[in-house]
């Protein structure tokens, strides 16, 4: 049986995440039908998934839509793996120091929103990521960073401003956007970590 991957489809770059996971899964499947990636629009879909991507977007908007769609509890209790990017990284944290965002507490870390500044400070960087042989083209868009992490959290990448990629158990969170880079190595790393 294939792995069931969903992409939280409330707001943000959902299509890019779906496409990246479809490609990553197609590459990892050995013949036969490659498993499909489902957009997740309803709370009932969440418990059936093995993995869930929480895309980039606006964390305040996503936080409200999670609440209004009754998704807070199913997400906070999700026991599959979460692949979170940018706003997603803010949401999976234990705290963002901002009452406008209610974090899910899936990864033990405190994050700072828009840590690099406004859009003019958005940038691309060649980033060394633990587990990858070659640097990754990291696309930071009004990105957050993690400031403190729990003892069970492994740092995968760091820049002078703070921590920008982490793993805790099945979950991975990135301050940048692997789904925009046209490079699936971090998706593969995530799937391997789930045993796919």
């Amino acid at each position: 049986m294939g792995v069931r991957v969903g992409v939280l489809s409330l707001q943000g770059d959902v299509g890019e995440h779906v496409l990246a996971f479809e490609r990553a899964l197609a590459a990892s499947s050995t013949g036969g039908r490659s498993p499909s990636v489902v957009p997740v629009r309803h709370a009932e879909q969440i418990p059936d998934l093995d993995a869930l991507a929480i895309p980039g977007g606006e964390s305040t908007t996503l936080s409200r839509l999670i609440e209004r769609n009754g998704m807070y509890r199913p997400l906070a209790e999700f026991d599959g793996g979460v692949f979170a990017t940018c706003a997603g990284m803010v949401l999976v944290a234990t705290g963002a120091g901002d009452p406008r965002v209610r974090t899910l507490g899936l990864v033990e870390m405190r994050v700072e929103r828009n840590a690099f500044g406004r859009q003019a400070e958005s940038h691309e960087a060649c980033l060394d990521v633990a587990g990858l042989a070659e640097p990754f083209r990291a696309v930071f868009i009004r990105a957050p960073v993690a400031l403190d992490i729990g003892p069970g959290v492994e740092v995968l990448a760091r820049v002078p401003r703070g921590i920008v990629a982490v793993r805790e158990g099945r979950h991975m969170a990135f301050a940048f956007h692997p789904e925009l880079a046209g490079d699936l190595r971090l998706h593969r790393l995530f799937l391997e970590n789930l045993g796919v």
Partner: protein
Amino acid sequence: MKLEELRFGTELLKRGFASMQKGGVIMDVVNAEQARIAEEAGAVAVMALERVPADIRKVGGVARMADPERIVEIIDAVSIPVMAKCRIGHFVEAQVLEALGVDMIDESEVLTPADEQFHVDKTLFKVPFVCGARDLGEALRRIDEGAAMIRTKGEAGTGNVVEAVRHMRAIMGGIRALKGLSTQELIDRAREIGAPAELVVECARLGRLPVVNFSAGGIATPADAALMMQLGADGVFVGSGIFKSANPAGMARAIVEAVNHYDEPQFIAGVSRGLGEAMKGIDVHTLREEEVLQYRGR
């Protein structure tokens, strides 16, 4: 990470920023209080203005970039991105907006054009631009100049969705009509619609614009917003429709939710109940030609 390898203002960063807005509602605001209401309602960004388009129509005269004081006040009030408008072709207003820290610039026909020949060369800026378009050719001309996001022009400040519908249908229909054409035919079509051939070929290959495509200009209710989403918009701008309605906070929230559930009529029915009156609106056929904003910029 080596510092010298950082790259700012790339095409990927500009288009990526626009992608993060997808499925969202961008709301016009004129002060910090309205900006906070918009953010609380779930807006993905706010557009900082001196006046909403309905008031620009009323006041008349030359409509320019907003007072920087006002823009800074709004930037300081919210954590979501702040956009602001410059006049078509007014690259110095655009430079000023970039210097103020605006996250995206709308080169907008809602303001009085500063140049009747040229739009701003948007490739010279680090921050991304959004531009209005009425059809596929216009959208691709703006993308060719460096726009990272397209929105329908619609007819701003009227509360009448008819022009936004016309423009969205023209853009989507224009793309559908490319299907099945040979390269030679695509190049011929590019000439016909006054767009660069390589962008027409790219559209045909992708089956959509190469950048995010929002709808704007006349959206006044949750159902209007859902209509534009069902017609293929990636998200919506709401100008006068929120703060000219009887219940701005309720209307803002309802439009955010209607965009989120744009293909679920039961849900749209639910959020539309008891919202009070939407903005009054104007029949676009009663506008004199010089009052029609969408004809500005080609």
